[in-house]
Structure formats: structure tokens, C-alpha cells
């Protein structure tokens, strides 16, 4: 279950992380992450709020710069390449954001067409056909001319997936695909991810804290806690894991009270150093 640490990436891996560290100012968020993602597999990154899983995802797609370590994607270390080379890699990845992040001033069709217009020399009529195809793949046929604001939460996510699929990516990233959706709509998104995986054999990386959804779509899981990899392994192995932190997360056991109090105190004092304005409020609370 332990990730095997190596200095060089596995040659056949789609993504390899080697001692990845990320910090915001003084605070280190990720303390040396190591794992590999094989081509065609679905890896679910699990973790509680503030575990660093969203930072990990943002770093993987190049939105955050690592403070040290290596991120090998398709054989290139994205921590050490130029922005032009990064753009090359970005054309091979798709990202579906938590809230969809569709451009509000454009129709759904224009949203999906945008990466094609930017990065290909295809004719407008060809792009129109591709847009229809991609929207059909996510179950949104006929919604080309809708504005994002006219779509429901689940439809927005589907439209965002269609846009992420536009360039036929090799790797698809999802940030909290079921966040903010009711269970039925969320299950629909899970089904969509499974269908895409079956149809295109894409490498899929999903960040979530929804256990039901994770167990349904994952080939392998990695559990992140306080910026460290706690456990990584195939879904079934993880399900039967006896490691205490893993069991605690899967069985939804609350944090032990003592640790929580210490964390709480630390949080209060940290806050006090950072913001003078909040000082009076903290005093009032204690």
C-alpha cells in the first residue's frame, strides 16, 4: 500500500509525482507527495476539507507552482518546463471545475467551441459538428444556444465536461464532480464519468470527498490528509484497509476531541497573529 519512492518517473506512467511540495507563503500545504497514475486508469483523490486535495489538483493542471519536487506528465516534468511547453501539455488535458466555470457571456456551444477555435485551424462548420458531438456525449443535445445561466447545476457540470472533452484530451481532471448536486443528479455525473472512461480509455483523475461516488468510479484511490498521502491502492484493497486513518475517513468517525481542541486553539492563535481585526471576535468567543 505504500507508494514506492523513486527519483525517476516510471516510464509507462501517465503522471508521476516525486516528492511534490506546495506552499502558500509560509504555510506548506503538501508535504512531499509521491504516486503514479497509469494510462487509462481512474484515480480518485480523497480527503477531507483542508486536506490539500484541491491544491494537489490545481498543481497537477499547472495552476499552482510547486515549491519543490517533480510532476511528470506524459514524460515531461511540468515543474521545470517553459510556459509554451506547458501549453502543449494543456492541450492534452481537460479539466472540469467544481462550479463548471463556463464563460457566462457565451452560449454553451461557444464555450465548447472555444478551445477548438483557439488551438485548431478547423473550419467553423467542422467545429459546429464537433460541438454537437461533444454535447451529445454528455447528454446535452440541442442545448448549444442556451446561456450557462439558463442551465441547472447538473447541466452546467455536463456542459463543462463537454468543453473539457473538446480537444480529445488524454487526461481528464474533475474537481468535486458531485459537489452541490442532489444525489440523483450526482449519480448521473458518476455514470457519465464511467461511460467516458469506457468509451475513450482516458486517464481520469477525480478529486472528491463523496465516498459513494469514489467507490463507484475509482480503479485506485489515494487518501490525502494534512498534505500527506495516507494510503494509496486499488479500490477493493482500500475498502478493506485496516489502517486507522483510512478507516476513520471511510467510517466517517469524527476527529478525537483532544486533537480537535488543540487544532482549534492553534487555529485561534494563528488567526490572532495574522489579523488584528479579528482579535476582538476571538476574545469574545473564548
Amino acid at each position: 500500500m505504500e507508494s514506492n519512492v523513486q527519483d525517476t518517473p516510471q516510464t509507462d506512467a501517465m503522471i508521476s509525482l516525486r516528492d511534490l511540495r506546495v506552499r502558500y507563503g509560509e504555510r506548506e500545504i503538501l508535504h512531499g507527495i509521491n504516486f503514479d497514475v497509469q494510462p487509462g486508469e481512474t484515480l480518485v483523490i480523497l480527503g477531507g476539507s483542508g486536506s490539500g486535495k484541491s491544491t494537489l489538483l490545481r498543481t497537477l493542471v499547472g495552476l499552482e507552482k510547486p515549491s519543490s519536487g517533480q510532476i511528470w506528465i506524459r514524460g515531461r516534468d511540468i515543474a521545470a518546463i517553459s510556459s509554451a511547453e506547458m501549453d502543449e501539455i494543456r492541450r492534452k488535458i481537460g479539466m472540469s471545475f467544481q462550479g463548471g466555470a463556463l464563460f457566462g457571456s457565451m452560449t454553451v456551444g461557444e464555450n465548447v467551441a472555444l478551445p477548438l477555435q483557439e488551438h485548431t485551424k478547423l473550419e467553423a462548420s467542422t467545429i459546429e459538428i464537433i460541438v454537437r458531438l461533444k454535447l451529445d456525449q454528455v447528454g446535452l443535445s440541442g442545448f448549444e444556444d442556451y446561456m450557462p445561466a439558463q442551465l441547472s447545476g447538473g447541466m452546467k457540470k455536463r456542459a463543462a465536461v463537454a468543453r473539457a472533452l473538446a480537444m480529445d484530451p488524454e487526461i481528464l481532471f474533475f474537481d468535486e464532480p458531485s459537489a452541490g448536486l442532489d444525489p440523483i443528479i450526482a449519480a448521473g455525473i458518476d455514470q457519465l464519468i464511467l461511460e467516458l472512461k469506457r468509451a475513450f480509455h482516458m486517464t481520469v483523475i477525480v478529486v472528491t470527498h463523496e465516498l459513494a461516488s469514489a467507490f463507484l468510479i475509482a480503479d485506485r484511490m489515494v487518501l490525502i490528509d494534512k498534505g500527506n498521502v495516507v494510503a494509496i491502492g486499488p479500490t477493493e484493497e482500500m475498502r478493506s484497509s485496516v489502517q486507522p486513518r483510512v478507516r476513520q475517513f471511510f467510517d466517517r468517525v469524527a476527529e478525537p476531541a483532544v486533537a480537535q481542541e488543540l487544532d482549534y486553539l492553534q487555529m485561534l492563535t494563528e488567526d490572532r497573529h495574522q489579523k488584528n481585526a479579528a482579535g476582538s471576535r476571538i476574545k469574545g468567543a473564548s
Partner: protein
Amino acid sequence: MELTSQVGGTVLDGLGYIGALASLGGRAAYFTFVGPFRGKPLRMQRAVSQAMDVGVRALPILSLITFFIGLILALQAAYELRRFGALNFVATAVALSMTRELGPLITAIVVIGRSGSAFAAEIGTMKVTEEIDALETMAIDPIHFLVTPKFLAMILMLPCLTIWANTMGICGGALFGVAQADFTWTRYIQASIDSLFLRDVMTGLVKSVMFGMTITAVGCYEGLSTGAGAEQVGRSTTRAVVMSIFLVIVVDLVFTALFFFAGGH
């Protein structure tokens, strides 16, 4: 000790801010003037729709404001000129102060209120809803995609609006001239034209281009540096307006001084 370190910190922050604006403006200028020859075509459609927003839709309010400003200038000038029996110099006074100073400045302030704030709000909202991040993950440069069309629209439309503002100001002055100072409309306009040198108009237009760059850089920078949460968008918008007005005045001072010492006026 406390005071010196605070003053030092503020100065450094200020310089850092100017540096960030210059870098943003510089990249937008690169994408506008150099990019098209390096295989990064301009988004003309977006630039045209921005130009409509920044320029054409500002015309009604700008016309009204500058007409009134021209009228006010005439009244203020007449107050003093009347004592010397030189009321016929009203046309000169209005024409010079409009074209050299108030035309560009009032135009800039109207554009800050309408468009500078809108840039910050639009880009700030896109930042909060992760749309800027989405652009980056699609390998689309947000500066090229969002800022450059605005930059192009601004540096084209501000001089046009300024010419229009000058004209409307002179018309405002003419209303006073005809009603109170024995001018006819044609004589007033002729007197205004006679009193102007091309240099007066050109210095105003050069300033207006600089104002356009400043407003775009501040509005877009404030939008792009919006923090998380809807209230931050409001804060960015306010900051964009306040900083733009301040920096436009600073740029105005710098260029007016430059023209003064360079041209002897």
C-alpha cells in the same frame, strides 16, 4: 522607527503596484502591436464589441456632461473677463481649457465610471467563478483573451471620445456666447477654431491615449487580483475606480509638465 518602516513599506507597495500595472499594460500592448505579426491574431470581434461599450454607448452621458462643463467654463471665465470688457475672449478661454485639459480629463473620468469599473467587475467575477483558471487550463492566455481587446478598444475610443467631448464643450460655451456675449453661432465657433493650435488638440489626444492605457491596466489588474468571494468583486471594483482616478490625474500632471517644459507652453 515605526513611522519610517511604514513609509518605506507604503512606498515599496506603491512601486510594486505600478510595476504590476506596467507589466500588465506592457503585455497587452505586446499582444496588440506585436502579437498579430507573430501568429497571435487579434480578436477583432471582441475588440469591436468592447469599443461599442466603451465608446459609442458612452456618447449620450458624455455629451451631456461636457456640454454642461463648457457652459460652466464660459460662465466662470465671463465672471472675470467682463470686468475688463473682454467678454469676446470667452470663446478662447473655453476652447483652450476644453481641448488642453478638461476634454481629456472629463472623458477619462466618465470612462472610468462606466468601463474601468465594469472591467474590474467582469474579470473579478470570472476570477471568483474559476473562469480565469479555466482559460489557463485550456492554454488560453487570459491577458490575450480578455485584456487585449479592452486595451485596443480603449486606446482607439478614448481619443475619439475626447474629440467629441471637446466639440460638445465648445458648443456649451457657445450657448453662453450667443445668449450673453453678442456672438452668433458661426462667429463663436470660428473664434474657437482661430484660438486653437493643432498642438493644443494633439497634447490632449496624447494624454487621452495614456489615460486609456492607465484605465485598462488598473481595471483589469484589479479584476485579476480579486480574492475569493463575491464581496471581493465589489472591493476590486471600488479600488479600480479610486486608483484609476488617482493615476489618471498623476499621468495628466506628468504629461502636462512634459509638454510645458518641452514645448515652452
